[in-house]
């Protein structure tokens, strides 16, 4: 896997580097910015379409609701035992089971889609540098079309050397 990257000491210079790369014609999907914290105020990536995660969570919730309903109904009707004069299918208690499984469904759907969309867990070797954990921000270009141009652009934003993978 071929990539060139530079380590920037602060988010401003990293933003500058990304902007310059974009101006230089590098496509957005080739630019990867890696940091040890999220930088919400900066525009490192243009792929900020609204996440589907909320809808997935809602879907998980609906699935949980269905599961709760089914479970309560089946367990109550498979052995219809009268308890305390209550109806066999007692909706007041069933609501509680349905609620809990709805929330569990939403939570599990969220976590599963998080792992799926972020590609975790993974053992593939991807672009990374341990200096990121020291606070540096890594700006990488994967499969660069023009090596030298990318290197010049990265260096122009304030770093001494670039690294290659």
């Amino acid at each position: 896997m071929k990539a060139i990257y530079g380590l920037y000491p602060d988010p401003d210079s990293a933003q500058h580097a990304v902007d310059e790369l974009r101006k230089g014609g590098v496509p957005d999907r080739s630019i990867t910015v890696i940091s040890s914290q999220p930088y919400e105020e900066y525009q490192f990536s243009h792929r900020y379409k609204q996440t589907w995660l909320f809808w997935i969570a809602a879907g998980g919730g609906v699935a949980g609701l269905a599961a709760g309903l089914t479970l309560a109904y089946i367990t109550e009707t498979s052995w219809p035992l009268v308890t305390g004069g209550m109806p066999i299918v007692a909706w007041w208690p069933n609501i509680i089971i349905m609620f809990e499984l709805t929330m569990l469904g939403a939570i599990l759907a969220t976590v599963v889609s998080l792992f799926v969309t972020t590609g975790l867990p993974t053992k593939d070797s991807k672009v990374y540098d341990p200096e990121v954990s020291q606070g540096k921000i890594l700006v990488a270009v994967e499969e660069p079309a023009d090596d030298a141009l990318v290197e010049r652009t990265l260096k122009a934003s304030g770093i001494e050397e670039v690294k290659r993978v």
Partner: protein
Amino acid sequence: MTLQDEQKINADLLRPLRSTSVWFFLLVAFLGTILLCGAGAWFYQMSNGLAVAGIRWPIFWAFYITNFVFWIGISHAGTLISAILRLVNATWRRPVTRCAEVITVFALMIGAMFPIIHLGRPWLFFYLIPYPSERHIWPNVRSPLSWDFFAISTYLTGSTLFLILPIIPDFALMRDQMTGWRRRIYGVLALGWQGTTKQWHRLEAAMQIMAIAIVPVAISVHTIVSFDFSMSPVPMWHSTVFGPYFVVGAIFSGIAGLIIAMAVLRKTLHLEAYLHPLHFQNLGKLLLLMSLLWGYFTFAERITTWYGNQPAEMAVFWETQTGSYAPLFWTMVFCNFLIPFPILAIRKLRTITGCVIASSTIVVGMWLERFLIIVPSLGTKNLPYSWSSYRPQPVEIMITIATFAAMVLLYTLFTKAVPIISIWELKVGGHVQPQLTAEGETEEEHHALWRTRP
């Protein structure tokens, strides 16, 4: 924030993981011994039957259910701090979230042991699990104990995930900063986390959803635990106020537990730069609010009972007010309200020490409150022939003490494995926010890691 600041944070918060003093080993050995004694006591109880405990006809629930409700209550700390404060964008929560979430997970695990410990036939606890068994019968979903199973499982799953997800970036950080066998383990736990913008975006969105989801779950859990009592016609149990009363009590005891944990961590792990008096001030104010709410609910419940003057309920009422449980009752009122209220209300007294004192009395008072809800009612039921009193036995006391030891032990071991302050969330708090600076505000104040302005 400069690179030096970032590296200092890394160094400070990873120091407990890197260096271990002899006190750690002594503490673990001490707590481990108590835990073993508790396990031995439980084993003794399982072999000899519940005759060795203090329960009797008709007081069939006592210490173990008190502990159950108490620990599930303590587990409400994490949810409030992490989830609700995250949802209202209170940035001062950042150093505090992981401390709180850890309390939740461990308190839940300990609390969830008690429905098994108190069973007459604990080896058959799996009868509660709804799976298609060869017995061809399902659990009764009309039973509040069945609701407990669902609620606690959901909450435990949710809060464990809520704790673990934001640790993944920290595992990646530790993989980079550590060496040797630690590096390998953290490398596996980091799951290949890089820190791309997409990953951060997704993680934050997932945390937001989890926060929204976990709050109703937490409220429902303690409501359902309260339903264990309010669904039966026992005098002074069959009260509609129990749901909100228990939730308020849970959040109350949870915050108290959190303050104590934070104060201890601050001292022992030298986190003075990260856990600022401001955090304790803010949590102290929340604790004050919960103390007032607790007082309000207690008053509402008791005045309704007293005014209603129903004979069965009044028998229980007077037992706690002036009868054999009166000393415990008034101690509880002191501990939950009369002592904490001035400490937390008066700004000068709302220091770290003050908050810890108030929290300690509250933890004691809330444990007493659970006890006083359960035992006097059962000891003074409808037919006076059955009225009895309860005396705890060594087995029950030992197991109770062992759960406190277990909590401290689990917490101590956790601080050795994972940084107790979420490193990346703390760093985010230090970002320069694009906002209006107040006139005359110093540079330092503007960049402080903890700010009250969102």
